[in-house]
Every structure is written in C-alpha cells, then in structure tokens.
C-alpha cells in the first residue's frame, strides 16, 4: 500500500470524492450528532468540489488504487489571516479521509504529506486544521505527525441556552 499513488483530483473524481466525503461525514456524525448533515449537504458539497478542483486557493488530492479506484482524499485551502494576529497567510486542511478497509496502511499520512508539500510551495508558513473532539483517533494521528493543539472550539445549542 506504500506505493498507492497520490495525485491532484480531477473533475472526473467528483463522484468518488462525494462518496468518500459522505462516508466521512456519516462517521463524524455518528460519533457526535452536532455534525449531523443538512438535507442539502450533498448537493452543496458537490458544487464545492467542482469549485475547489479548479480554483487556486484550494488543493484537492486523491489516493488512487490500481489506477482506477479512489480510496482516499484530502483538501486544503489558502487564505489571509485575520488581520490582527500572525500569520498573515494561513493554510487550512479541511478534510483527510481514507475508506475504512484501506486504513492503517499509511495512506492518510501520505495524503497529508502531499498537502503539506504543496502548501510549502506557496506563500504560507503556517497550517491549521480542526478535529472533532469525539474523534480521538484523528487527534492522536495529527499529534503523531508533529501538530500541536492551539485552540478549542466550544458550542452550545440554543435549545439548551
């Protein structure tokens, strides 16, 4: 599995990307209902993938097995900082996902590594990402790659306000 190629996503990958994204969100939503999907999420995400694959502010990469089966994907974006605090420009990794049967073979690590290599070629020197508190495995994964906790996002449902 070490040799599964990682390449930039193409428009033809969008159906596979959507399947993987949906599976990812189902996993996250099952662990924490606060991530349950909106009724129109799938269409909206399809439009986002279309846009991201073409624009220069997003990086979308896929892991492809056997030259035809997309088994994982990862997304990053580049944007200005908030204008008050460092950094001036910031990379954000929003998604890294590998289909469950293909896990524990280094694919996620290679997808993340490719994104960092691509971000390194831009004007960005700092990258951030958010991990669901319920996803302890993902938190441990990123920490094992040298990432450090910075902030905590807290939420309150208005029903409980």
């Amino acid at each position: 599995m070490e040799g599964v190629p990682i390449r930039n996503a193409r428009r033809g990958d969008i159906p596979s990307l959507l399947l993987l994204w949906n599976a990812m969100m189902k996993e996250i939503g099952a662990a924490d209902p606060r991530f349950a999907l909106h009724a129109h999420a799938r269409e909206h995400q399809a439009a986002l993938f279309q846009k991201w694959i073409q624009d220069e502010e997003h990086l979308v990469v896929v892991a492809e097995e056997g030259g035809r089966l997309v088994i994982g994907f990862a997304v990053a974006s580049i944007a200005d900082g908030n204008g008050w605090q460092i950094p001036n420009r910031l990379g954000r990794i929003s998604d890294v996902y590998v289909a469950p049967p293909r896990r524990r073979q280094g694919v996620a690590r290679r997808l993340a590594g490719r994104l960092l290599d691509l971000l390194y070629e831009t004007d960005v020197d700092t990258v951030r990402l958010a991990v669901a508190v319920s996803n302890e495995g993902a938190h441990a994964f990123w920490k094992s790659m040298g990432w450090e906790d910075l902030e905590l996002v807290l939420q309150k449902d208005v029903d409980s306000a």
Partner: protein
Amino acid sequence: MASEANSAVRAARRSDLHALADLRMRFLGAVGHAEPRLRLLADARARTEQTLPVWMGQDDRVLIVAEGEAPDVEEGTPPIVGYAMGLFTTAPPLLQHTHVGEILEIYVLPDARGRGLAGALIDVLTSALTGRGAEVLRSVVPIVGNADVDRIQRAGYSPLQFVLERRLDTV
C-alpha cells in the same frame, strides 16, 4: 451578583470607540502573550481603529461593553472596563444548523474582575445572538488560557473541535 453585573452591560456607542480600541488591544495583547502563536501583527492597532466603526454599523455584529463603577458626577459617564463581540453568520448548508452565533472576543480589565462582568457579557451576547436567530453558539478559545475555556464551559458550552497548528518550516 449576576443581575447586578448584567445591568452594567450595554450596547457599544460611537463615543466608546477610543476606549474599545484600547480594550481590544489589551485583549489581543494578552492572548498573544499567553499564546505566542497568536501574537499581534504590527499594524493591529491601526486596523482595529479603522474597523471598529465599521463593525459598529453592522446588523450581524454585536458589540457590547461593561461599565465600571460610576465616577463622581463631574467626570461624567462610568468608564468602560470590558467588552464582548459576537457575530451572527449563516453557514453553508453542510451541517444541520446553519444559523450560527459566534462569540468572538470577551475581555474585562484585570482590576474589574471578580464582579461577574465576564459572565454578564457572555449572557447578554448569547441573548443578542439568539435573538438574531442563532440555532447554535460557538466560541474559539486558545487552549493555553484554561480560565477562558472554563468560563465558556460554565456558560453551558461544551468542546466541539480541537484546532491544531503546524509550521511548515518544521516539516
């Protein structure tokens, strides 16, 4: 103490702009001191002075202040000793709740702490954002500031996500 503190909180006015800029720089400076990865940019003060009047005119932004104890009558209005800022946003239709109220900043001067003003600012901000239609409320807090995390949790918020960072020159 809560209702007494709540009565010290009011909407920010144009006449508060200078004091608000001072407070905001104190807040951002304190964050940057505790967490160097969030330290201030050199032009943060100038940007704050330019941006505050714009924010004050926006319907989706809530800017409130906490007044200190009143000075004697000849000095006029009570000083501003704290502030909070929130933003009502409509997120893309990805998660179920798209109407989000964000608590962006809360700060109370050290000398004015211990009177419940921070809790009152959170209460008033929460009500204002809920009144604008927020279905969920979020706050992003640096992890090094455990006191801030505790304060937000005491107001009924629970952890949702960790934000992690990595510098590319350490890759």
